[in-house]
């Protein structure tokens, strides 16, 4: 699955401190296009903090995050950009651990809000839209078509006119993915997309993510606790523990890595020194 060529997202020596707490410590990794990169680790390992740094919700204390947009010659330096610019210009889309839909708006409206940038431009920042010009109406019809495409693909088309808050939990998760895809991203960051899904739904999620990767050529960055999902679809896994990277590689490699096993399961008393020597702590 992996391709030669430069990584689309490169995280270099990123450190994030909150006062005395070091949430992410000198983290470096890279995500390649058309690959699913999973970030795993025990609770509190700093996975969501990494996501927040990449998507601009936090400014990292140190380090550099580069994103190579295919349609842009120069790489974007994400640590210097505003969060909404990262989404709108650099093409980074994300979902949230606790679903953040616009619950009082319909499913279709949620997807149109995601296309705000191009639509707002088409409406001449509301002036053409206010006068009801044809140019805007055409743009809106196209946006609805694009939204329908994603609703169709994720099996939500019949719920298009229902309030997002009325959807079942699994449907809300899928709607959040559809909504972030409507921003036309080059990299999709999913924060625990399988949380709360039943086995059938999470198998469906696997298929969807693979399809997005293969059909749309997206890079996907994934935080997940469900090892079935992680091992099933990841091309590449980064393991964090206490804010530091402890392993990085293909799923088979990670599965057998002793430090990873130690981080997840703990170690027996007599092995502690051995493992500590290995981890370097």
């Amino acid at each position: 699955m992996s391709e030669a060529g430069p990584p689309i997202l490169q995280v270099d020596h990123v450190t994030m401190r909150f006062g005395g707490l070091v949430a992410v410590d000198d983290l470096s990794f890279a995500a390649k296009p058309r690959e699913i990169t999973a970030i795993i680790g025990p609770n509190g390992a700093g996975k969501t903090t990494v996501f927040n740094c990449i998507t601009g919700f936090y400014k990292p204390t140190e380090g550099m995050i580069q994103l190579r947009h295919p349609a842009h010659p120069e790489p974007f330096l994400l640590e210097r950009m505003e969060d909404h610019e990262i989404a709108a210009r650099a093409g980074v889309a994300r979902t949230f651990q606790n679903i953040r839909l616009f619950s009082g708006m319909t499913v279709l409206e949620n997807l149109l809000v995601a296309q705000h940038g191009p639509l707002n431009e088409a409406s001449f920042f509301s002036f053409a839209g206010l006068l009801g010009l044809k140019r805007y109406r055409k743009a809106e019809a196209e946006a609805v078509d694009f939204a329908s495409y994603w609703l169709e693909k994720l099996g939500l088309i019949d719920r298009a006119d229902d309030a997002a808050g009325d959807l079942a939990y699994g449907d809300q998760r899928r709607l959040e993915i559809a909504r972030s895809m409507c921003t036309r991203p080059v990299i999709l960051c999913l924060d625990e997309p399988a949380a709360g899904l039943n086995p059938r739904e999470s198998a469906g999620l696997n298929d969807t993510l693979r399809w997005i990767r293969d059909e749309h050529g997206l890079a996907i960055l994934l935080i997940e606790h469900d090892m079935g999902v992680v091992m099933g679809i990841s091309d590449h896994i980064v393991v964090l523990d206490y804010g530091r990277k402890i392993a990085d590689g293909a799923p088979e490699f990670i599965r057998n890595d002793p430090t990873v096993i130690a981080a997840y399961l703990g170690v027996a008393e007599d092995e502690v020194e051995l493992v500590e020597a290995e981890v370097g702590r």
Partner: protein
Amino acid sequence: MAEGVVMATGARSIEAPDVGEALKQAIIASGIALILFIAIVGIKTENAQGGLALIYRFGAAFSLAATVGVVRFLFDLFVWRGLGREIMQRWLPAGTLGTVMTALVIAAYLLGAYYFIVPGSRLALAETLSDIFGDNEWRSRSRIFVELTGQLVIAVFIVLSAMGIIMALRRLFSAAIPASREAVPPAARAEKTTLAEFGQQFAPALLVIAVILPVLVAGPQQRYALDTAIQILTYIMLGWGLNIVVGLAGLLDLGYVAFYAVGAYSYALLSTSFGWSFWICLPLAGILAAFWGIMLGFPVLRLRGDYLAIVTLAFGEMIRILLLNWQSLTNGPNGISQIPKPSFFGLSFDRFGGSGTKFHEFFGLQYDAVYRIIFLYYIILALALMVNFASQRLRRLPIGRAWEALREDEIACRSLGINTVTTKLTAFAIGAMFGGFAGSFFAMRQGFISPESFTFHESALILAIVVLGGLGSQIGVVVAAVALIGSSEFFRDLEDYRMLIFGASMVVIMVWRPRGLVSGRAPTVVLKEHKVISGGLVKEGAG
């Protein structure tokens, strides 16, 4: 037990009324009523020599409590339980709600027509009522009350008739039924359409009535009625303006009156210093108010919830205090007077004086001061409709959807590439602009303004209109403005009881409809079917 009741209603033809239970309820009801009435009605203070004197009217209190008990008893026996419920169940199978509506319309029509046509009928009713109490004061009070109720019935009757007429006309002219409706089974359709269609005619009916209002109220009361209508429309316009900030963008603004003041002073100062006409000053006032909206917006961008409310409240007070103290510009507490009155395409509404042709001379009419009022009425109607049109359009545009998304979840907005700074600022600016328009109209209408007109009380009233109407609802604002401003005018004769009624109705509405009169949210874009989103899902915004 519950099952038994269901079985009984299904099997037997008439459920025997439970007299004992009804009696018990009646006694409880009259007991509660007595406790209330003893204090409110039974004891009265009156100015007497050497201070206040207490006057006891326990007879009136007892008779009121007894009336409550009897009515409750009768309701229990014949309306809620036995016969009445049976009638409702038998004669009101699913799908005949329309018939009930029609019956109600006819009843309102007949009652309205009776009071409207038969001279003295309202007075006669009042006499009968006051005879029961046998008290002169109650005589006059009940006369006022019956008179007001009569007027209310007439108002309802006019609105309902207009809705009926519009509905009938629509049916008449829409020969072809849309194809999509064919799919719906006729039985389901009948029930759905009657009520929904009836509801849809409410706004057009109000519009028609608003347009022909000057004719409707012709007579000795015309001037007063139009003045009230102008006041109501001003508040409707302010409510619609604030609705953008509070209802759509979810930013609680307690200082909205500041923009109203900016608009009013802009027109007052520009017209008195430079002699510019209203139509030049109106957009300028809007722009200045929008500018101040942005000035307020910048410092509060990062504030949410209570903090935002406090800062906006302070901003409203700051503007008022500034106007009060900047003597050289605003003339301080003395205000600005002799603000130019409107003219009809250069034709003055004055009787004498000045140069140029007068309105009544040009049209060859007898001079009447009411022409100016009618003209003002149509100006504010046009302005309000323009605000309504603009905000309805904006709501369906990307910026409007971004406002609503901001109200729902700001973080999700940012993750989708929406610049929340500009989105918030446009909400503040456009809301403020509409407030500025209303302000300059206010200055023109009054001819005199002073900082006293722009106190926090006004902000609170406008916010109450928006909240009472239902956040984000346009028609809700209309109903709430009519209810709040109209009722305080309507019950003016009741003096102090007015505030009692005002407070009580607010409490009742907030208990009955905690999310406002119109709580559902209409989607801005539809793929297949238009479904109203229930108010429970719509967030109120965190500020």
